[in-house]
């Protein structure tokens, strides 16, 4: 190939796109020296060490039917079950305590209704809240290498939440997940002075954002233990809050930060004067803003405690040195696979002018794949690495199809015939790519943990191949053969 041909080749959009993407990918991967070779690639727990905890919600979402007024029915149910119960849809409730199906059946019948469906887990909203709480907690710890994922079934009920923490062991991970913040309520006395009222341990339950009957302001209700209610009353009286509520604001402080501040309502002040009050409500305002403030306040009131109890359903820890070893081995496995492919291809074609571009295009595909993985922050774990090497295998397959289709009967085809053959080869490749994508799609969509990485990498690899590297290879091999 002479210089002019080479420039002409580089100017075809297929080849130009390939080169641009390889360059962009190298920038995205950003390999640099920093205590060894570091890149922007995200590694999964099994490559860098850490712990994952899969936790099951101790709650259930059930359907019910009743002839009684719903609120009456629910109140009675709440009493027998001694659990928080929330309506989460038409005739669906979330019970935030674990009961098996037959226990619930009995309770429902006793309360004058029937149980129509039973599923362990929580509603989507509760699950999102749990996720938010866990994320806030992990962020507060500065562990940016933490991930929280939900496992939701087809019915929309979330059964599990999974937390991944890089670089910590099992007990440490459990501590972090279970850790609660320090919550305190203080009352303003004079000026900017405040006095202690109570700590978070006296808050026995926290409700979900709700509107008081007849009002449109949002708020979060919470109950105090008996001792807490007494402390609250004493403090309010001692500092004059009951007689002059407007000048005695209450501050809620979580881990040293004021998260809510409002005056005592005249209504509550009067009640406190008369006796201890256990049932309280902190209002946050009207409209969408009031609701979102209420949601935040609920999380703060819980002080990092989850609204639903969880039990550990699965866990795994990989020590960091082992992860490093695995990473090294993966690199070797990759090199070995690339060499093996190269040897087989060379054995078949025995022509460096064909073999080198083939292997080169094949590897560029992997570079682009890694580049995209870096950009979309797709974690690479062991399964994903296996997917990556499998992509190397399928990629070369399709280059073989193109080469053989074009080289048919060993003759160099005319330009017209070449285009025809190439499009036929592309037809074969398209169909086989579509089947791989379809076969892997369920794995990419279903919450089957580590398999997601495997599926995403495989699908991306196939797409990059079909859309970018195969067309470029078609041009390159044509230029080489027309020599």
């Amino acid at each position, binding site marked *: 190939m002479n210089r002019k041909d080479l420039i002409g080749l580089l100017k075809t959009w297929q080849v130009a796109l390939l080169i641009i993407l390889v360059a962009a990918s190298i920038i995205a991967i950003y390999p640099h020296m920093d205590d060894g070779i570091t890149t922007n690639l995200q590694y999964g727990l*099994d490559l860098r060490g850490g712990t994952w905890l*899969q936790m*099951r919600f101790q709650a259930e979402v059930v359907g019910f039917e009743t002839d009684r007024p719903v609120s009456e029915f629910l109140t009675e149910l709440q009493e027998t079950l001694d659990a928080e119960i929330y309506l989460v849809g038409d005739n669906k409730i979330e019970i935030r305590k674990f009961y098996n199906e037959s226990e619930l059946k009995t309770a429902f019948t006793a309360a004058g209704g029937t149980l129509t469906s039973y599923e362990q887990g929580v509603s989507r909203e509760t699950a999102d809240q749990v996720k938010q709480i866990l994320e806030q907690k992990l962020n507060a710890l500065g562990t940016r290498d933490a991930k929280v994922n939900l*496992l939701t*079934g087809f019915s929309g009920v979330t059964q*599990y939440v999974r937390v991944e923490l890089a670089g910590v062991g099992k007990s440490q991970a459990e501590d972090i997940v279970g850790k609660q913040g320090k919550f305190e309520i203080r009352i303003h006395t004079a000026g900017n002075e405040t006095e202690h009222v109570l700590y978070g341990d006296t808050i026995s339950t926290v409700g979900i954002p709700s509107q008081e009957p007849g009002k449109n302001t949002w708020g979060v209700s919470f109950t105090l233990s008996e001792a807490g209610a007494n402390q609250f009353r004493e403090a309010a009286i001692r500092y004059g809050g009951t007689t002059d509520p407007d000048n005695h604001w209450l501050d809620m402080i979580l881990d040293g930060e004021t998260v809510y501040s409002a005056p005592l309502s005249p209504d509550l002040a009067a009640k406190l004067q008369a006796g201890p009050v256990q049932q309280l409500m902190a209002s946050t305002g009207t409209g969408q803003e009031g609701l979102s403030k209420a949601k935040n306040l609920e999380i703060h009131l819980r002080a990092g405690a989850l609204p639903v109890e969880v039990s550990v*359903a*699965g866990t*795994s*820890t*990989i*020590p960091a*040195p*082992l992860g490093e*070893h*695995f990473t090294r*081995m*993966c690199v070797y*496995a990759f090199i*070995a*696979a690339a060499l*093996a*492919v190269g040897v*087989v*291809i060379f054995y078949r074609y025995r022509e460096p002018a064909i073999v080198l571009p083939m292997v080169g295009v094949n590897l560029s595909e992997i570079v682009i794949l890694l580049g995209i993985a870096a950009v979309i922050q797709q974690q690479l774990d*062991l*399964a994903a*690495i*296996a997917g990556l*090497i*499998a992509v190397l*295998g*399928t990629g*070369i*397959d*399709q280059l*073989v*199809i193109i080469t*053989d289709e074009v080289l*048919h009967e060993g003759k160099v085809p005319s330009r017209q015939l070449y285009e025809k053959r190439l499009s036929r080869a592309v037809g*074969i490749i398209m*169909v*086989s790519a*579509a*089947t*791989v*994508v*379809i*076969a*892997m*799609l*369920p*794995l990419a969509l*279903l919450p*089957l*943990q*580590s*398999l997601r990485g*495997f599926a995403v990498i*495989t699908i991306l690899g196939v797409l990059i191949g079909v859309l970018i590297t195969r067309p470029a290879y078609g041009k390159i091999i044509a230029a080489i053969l027309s020599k």
Partner: protein
Amino acid sequence: MGFVTYDVNRYTPRQMVVLPAILLIISLIVLGYSMATTGMPVKPGMDFSGGTAITIYTEDSPDVLKTVLSEYPIIYPIESGINNGKFLKFGLMDEATFDSLTSILDERYPDAWQFAQIDATFGQTLQQLAIYALIFSFLGMTIVVFLAFRSFVPAGAVILSAFANIAMTAAVMVIIGIELTLPTFAALLMLIGYSVDSDILLTMRVLKRQGKLEEKLSGAFRTGIIMTTTTLAAVAAMGIVAYLGNVPVIPAIASVLFIGLIFDMMNTWLTNAGIIKWYVERQESRQRKESGKKRGVK
């Protein structure tokens, strides 16, 4: 290819499909037997059945481990990998027992052990999701293949070979004792997509190219075999290196893919090629008959 002496044109369609048909029947019997005795066609590994698995990287022999950990409910045998890796499974343990076990391991084998624990209910959830995934994958593949060929026999042949691949691979997993875990399950699903590509190559070449059937078949065979051998080489290399390096997950994926690709060669070049040959020959003879009739009318 020097090392492949099979001639795709030497046998009749009937001869070609005999061997795979027998193997498929045997595989289905193996899977059915396993299903009847254990409730699952393939032995579920820890991901699906629950349990505690610990891998220790140590020069200590299994016997030493046995004495060190005698107080804990080890399920024997202790498997040994090639480079010091020891794989232990445990029965049910409460939190306190597990914590004491981990502290012993931390002291004796610091940073050289890893564990995973799954409870049975969670395993069942995963099992269910896996079944859905398998059904969707297979259906999706079927739809794509039918759309691509829009003709019953060729599409059916591709789908039958893909099915045979999965069934035979699963049967071998049962026989040689590879457990169904999340990674091996993913590898099985991947086979659905993987195995189809040489089938498509064969079908497209035979149906859409001009020329003699024999030439098209042997041309497709030459290309198809090189394709599968390159993939086999990549998969084998990755599996061997990962196995020698004591890396989990990858060797299991590699071995399932490897077995599946071997069957893929057979199912593509015997099952699928046999059916497509029969199909094309039948069409040609029909065309001959029809043109013969026309001539007769004249």
